[in-house]
């Protein structure tokens, strides 16, 4: 049995949402609330993850599926240590790197500044940053737009640049959250290759995607989340995908050949 790299032990994650309505929003109502010592009604607690446990080993590529709002992205953020758990704990063998749609860089800065700052924030030295700068820009394919502020980028372009920055460094644990959803076909093919080679170095990959073909192609293990809890998990990727499709009302997938999970490098 390979060594575990990620252990998630009864994880609970709670978001506190401010300004979730329920108040008329006038100064008078706010004053009454303070006088009556009531809690703000506009603070809502959202339990995004409610008691999830699993163990992940070296060489695993885990696909995470589930409906919108089932807690997939939250789970990844908690594993990366970006969202503190309310209860329970996540143990990892090293810093996990998260590539996500929300991985907002600094919008009003140019792409060039974002590449440099992103690399430095990941802990690369100025020399390493300089050395990998050109390959990051080339891989992203944003071309001349690198000199423009990122707020002028299309969603796909921003996505490509973010992916290129984050994949410039090899990570022990790599988590990809819909990072490839908006790229064009050419970029998706390029980044699939990159994921595979990163997986070779990384040892452990998490992949969140609504594209089930992508999950089946890249993952040897699958976790199905539903309302913050694990519905199913295991190594039978096509089986769980079919069960998921059945539950969500989709057609079972047609497969040309019996599916084998990708060979993985430990």
């Amino acid at each position, binding site marked *: *049995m390979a*060594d*575990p*790299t*990620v*252990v*998630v*032990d009864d994880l609970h994650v709670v*978001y*506190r*949402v*401010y300004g979730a309505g329920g108040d008329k929003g006038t100064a008078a109502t706010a004053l009454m609330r303070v006088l009556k010592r009531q809690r703000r009604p506009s603070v809502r607690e959202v339990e995004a993850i409610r008691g999830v*446990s*699993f*163990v992940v080993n070296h060489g695993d590529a885990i696909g995470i599926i589930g409906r919108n709002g089932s807690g997939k992205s939250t789970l990844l*953020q*908690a594993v990366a*240590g*970006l*969202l*503190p*758990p309310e209860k329970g*704990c*996540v*143990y*990892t*063998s090293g*810093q*996990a790197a*998260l590539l996500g749609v*929300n*991985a*907002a*860089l*600094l919008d*009003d*800065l140019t792409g060039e*500044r974002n590449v*440099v*700052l*992103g690399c*430095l*924030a*990941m*802990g690369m*030295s100025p020399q390493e940053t300089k050395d990998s700068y050109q390959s990051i820009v080339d891989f992203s394919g944003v071309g001349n737009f690198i000199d423009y502020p990122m707020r002028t980028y299309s969603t796909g372009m921003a996505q490509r640049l973010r992916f290129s920055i984050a994949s410039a460094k090899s990570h022990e644990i790599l988590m990809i959250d819909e990072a490839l959803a908006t790229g064009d076909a050419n970029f998706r093919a390029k980044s699939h290759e990159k994921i595979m080679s990163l997986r070779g170095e990384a040892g452990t990959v998490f992949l969140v995607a609504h594209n089930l073909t992508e999950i089946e192609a890249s993952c040897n293990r699958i976790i199905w989340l539903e*309302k913050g*809890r*694990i*519905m*199913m*998990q*295991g*190594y*039978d990727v096509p*089986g*769980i995908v079919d*069960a998921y499709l*059945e*539950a969500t009302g989709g057609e079972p997938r047609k497969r040309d050949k019996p599916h084998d999970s990708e060979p993985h490098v430990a």
Partner: protein
Amino acid sequence: MKERARDQGGPGTLTDELVASELAEAPAGGEPLAELAARYGLRASSARPGLLAYATQLWERRHFIMGFATARNVAMYTEARLGQLWQVLTPLLNAAVYYLIFGIILGTNRGVPNFLAFLITGIFVFNFTQRAFITTSRVITDSLPLIRALPFPRACLPIGYVLIELEQLIAAMVVLAVIVLSTGEPLTWYWLLAIPALMLQAIFNIGMGLFLARLGAGADDFSQLMPFIVRTWMYSSGVMYSIQTIGTLKHHPTITYILQINPAAVFISLMRNSILQTQRLAWPGSKPYNAAKCALYNLRGKNLENSAYCHGTLTMSQLWLYAAGWAVVALVIGFVFFWQAETRYGRG
């Protein structure tokens, strides 16, 4: 796990079968997961590093902090037609407004020699602390997307924000130097003292910035209140008047003393005494005590030059000690206070 799947009303037999097979493969066996993690040397991903390790991590990210500050500074005025000129125009306009109100309309100069240079120095120096306080109290809420996207020591952000303000101040200092020289102040070796004075002020601001960043992260009410706190502070720190010339304070040396050792007043006085010869020569206690001349100053309350012959409440070296003290105390307390909540900053 099996029961949970049933509770959820999962799709029947298939679920049970799969969950069962998953359990058989799970390496945990009956062992508690926390012990399994400990056995393989895994660390809690949301664990807070030790104080020393945290400081080391922060040092390793120094290039990120510097790059972040510079880039933000460049981006700050990209929407404005005059661009980076605003770095200099903003403090200049501030100075013009205060000069109009306090220098011309209200006439608070009360015999302060070279009041224009006195006022502008005070405003520029105070503005550094003011801006640092206001921006750092919002830094965590402002940077939530970045915090949730990348793991890095969060203290990078308030430190970066203070450095942004420091860079702005340095641009403003060039303007200040031109104004001061044009009002007839000589260029002396004392000007070099402006550098350590600014460094101590920057350290103080970083310490307080870390402190305020944590306070501001908890409740937004605090950052709403911040501008008022800072403004009250400004009016009591001798920015647009000289603390020692306030008539009502003449017979309350303790209050005068407290006002003079408050950090803002200390840093302002240090800067004024470094680059303004008229201020340095008028600092009480800077010349041997001369009862007659001091009485003249006390009597008429005007000619501030004569105050140099009075007994001073604070000597220059005491002023430097206070500055260093404030800087160290703020940095230590602010750093520890910020670090204690390190793992909670991501929570919305």
